């Protein structure tokens, strides 16, 4: 009997994995909506607003993909995932794509069999600490209690950082960002560590954000981006080029305001190819010709998404930094649409 239960559990896992193969684009088209994995709530990146509508920077990517496929940015359903459940959710086919502050690493790409479709936010791990502790550098954190989300790359970076600097710490593993906030504000941990963007977003939700500082050290590279299951390259291409379209749109000056105007035809052939008035790029992806127009109309180009959700005029107040276009000294660089 014990054996039966045992294999039953195995099989449930196996069956779920088996269903997740090939032709995701067809599946998505057939069911009429996109299932997108997001965080359980990180203001600015993905969180439900007052009306229960998911909104944020990562959510914007999901909506753009949905718009590229269906022409409708609302044809998407969101599945909140924790750091622990996200990969199982994607591998088992519960979600079609994951847009969830997930760091692109070698082992996730190669060993876990996922495919990262680019980077929508170049981030790095930082520390937040109450101002009254008087700490100015992460290297002064010897002996500190540090809250950390379990199952993330930050956990490993933290271990490496303290080891490298030969100082000790006490990790307090927590499951979600909300739990981390609570522990940190109650003083159960001295410092909270996660991606610097996540810290900024978390701090924005505090009652007195000015009482907390984010330390200057960035201790890791965290390229965050959307990902899909490995092996379905057509689907991977759809997500990758939708993201590239948003980035290229900003570079080419295509915004949600002028995209309809520009889609009538311009004298810039690259804009024409992107917006489908020239060539058949959309067809090659298995989408309609105006896929990029719809994706850009969904929430704007990359720059618009950034400014609306996490930019300097929002409570989160992140500067573009590394996430500026390459022409402005940043790292955003879309391959040509040709």
């Amino acid at each position, binding site marked *: 009997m*014990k*054996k*039966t239960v*045992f*294999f*039953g*559990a*195995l*099989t449930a*896992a*196996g*069956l779920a*994995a*088996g269903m*997740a*193969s090939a032709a995701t684009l067809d599946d998505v088209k057939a069911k009429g909506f996109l299932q997108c994995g997001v965080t359980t709530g990180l203001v600015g990146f993905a969180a439900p607003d007052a009306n229960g509508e998911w909104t944020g920077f990562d959510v914007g990517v999901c909506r753009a993909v949905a718009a590229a496929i269906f022409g409708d940015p609302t044809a998407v359903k969101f599945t909140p995932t924790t*750091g*622990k459940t996200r*990969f*199982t959710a994607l*591998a088992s086919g519960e979600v079609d794509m994951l847009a969830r502050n997930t760091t692109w690493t070698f*082992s*996730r790409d190669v*060993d*876990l*069999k996922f495919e990262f479709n680019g980077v929508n936010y170049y981030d790095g791990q930082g520390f937040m600490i109450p101002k009254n*502790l008087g700490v100015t550098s992460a290297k002064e*954190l*010897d*002996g*500190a*209690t540090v809250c950390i989300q*379990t*199952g*993330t790359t930050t*956990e*490993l970076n*933290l*271990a*490496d950082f*303290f*080891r490298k600097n030969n100082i000790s*710490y*006490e*990790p*307090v*593993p*927590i*499951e979600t960002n909300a739990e981390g906030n*609570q*522990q940190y504000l*109650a*003083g*159960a*941990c*001295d410092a909270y560590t996660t991606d610097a963007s996540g810290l900024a977003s978390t701090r924005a939700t505090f009652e007195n954000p000015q009482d907390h500082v984010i330390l200057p050290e960035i201790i890791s590279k965290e390229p965050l981006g959307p990902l899909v299951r*490995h*092996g379905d390259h057509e689907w991977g291409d759809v997500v990758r080029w939708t993201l590239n379209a948003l980035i290229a749109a900003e570079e080419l000056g295509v915004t949600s305001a002028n995209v309809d105007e520009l889609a009538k035809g311009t004298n810039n052939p690259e804009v024409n190819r992107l917006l489908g008035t020239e060539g058949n790029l959309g067809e090659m992806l298995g989408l309609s010709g105006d896929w990029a127009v719809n994706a850009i109309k969904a929430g704007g180009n990359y720059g618009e998404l950034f400014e609306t959700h996490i930019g300097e005029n929002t409570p989160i107040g992140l500067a573009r930094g590394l996430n500026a276009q390459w022409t402005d000294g940043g790292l955003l660089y879309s391959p040509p649409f040709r």
Partner: protein
Amino acid sequence: MSAITDPPPKSFRLSMLVNDTRYRSYTFQFIALVLLIMLVSYLGANLVQNLADQGQNISYGFLGEPAGYDINQRPIPYENQDTHMRAAFVGVLNTLIVAFLGCLTATIIGVFAGVARLSQNWIVRKLMAIYVEAFRNVPVLIWILIIYTVMTAAMPAPNAFRGDTPAASMVLDAVAFTNRGVYVPAPIWGEGSMIVVLVFLASIAGAIYYRRYATKLLYDTGRLLPMGWPSLAILFVPTLLIFFILGQPISLDYPVLKGFNFGGGLHIRGSLIALWFALAVYTGAFIAENVRAGIQAVSHGQTEAAASLGLRPSRIMNLVVLPQALRVIIPPVISQYLNLTKNSSLAIAVGYMDVTGTLGGITLNQTGRAIETILLLMLFYLAISLAISGVMNAYNNAIKLKER
């Protein structure tokens, strides 16, 4: 005259497999077994096939690789360059620690509450009824979270102990209650401390021997030796003498504020306290009901008979009722111990690094080897549960009614 001869044995016919009651049950059991084997092998093959389709295989190689993460509560030396295997082992020990502490505390609470539920005192009886109903009817996860949240919110942070007029102070200058847990003095084992420990162990044996001797003397001759103070004297006097003769080899390491936290001493983390306490009071409520049922199963005539012999109420409970009640109490308590051990896997809710948190949490996440780690976890919980029920069944056999 006619000789009675056995009827010739009927030859076996295939239809008898279904029609003959002697064979029918075997037939159906055999069919069920074949179907079961087919189902299991189908599911197993399906799993292997699906894994192969995804380009993955079952491999335990990751256990030998460096884990890369830190664990806060380490019963054995561990650092982040040690292997996943060692991290899993640290988790196993943490599970065993909380399971052991939980079972012990739950038993004490349960026996106390179970006896008190049958008290003559109305208030005591009703209070215990409220305890039992409140705790066993709310999910244990909720209790874990409530206790942990209350602790982090209500207790002072280590910061509050700082300064000339601190907002919080240590109890007796030795114990600090903070929202990160409780800091208590830790013993330092100096030179010669082993002798003290050995003397203490010998004293325990001596005390047990004295009590046996006193009982035997009572049964043989009817002479009643005092039990209480001589046992205590045997337990502590020699140990204390040796302790001072050797010049106090065991000293205490007091917790002191150092940097961000208290340093020194023993840190009992809030996560352990919350998990331990919640599991103990939750399971204690169930054990209380088992104890009550066991006591009520002992016929009232026994109590009356003992009372008419002139036994005091405490002796009636200890000598007459409880030995008989234990036979009813032990079997359900075994399953409560198993429940408590398995419920300890809720540890991750408060960040207690048990085996589900290390092997089934961080290791699973960092290596992505879900099936392998879950199999190992199932194996571990199965082994530990069987071990507990093995030990408890042996105890049950020792105390059960000896039938001759």
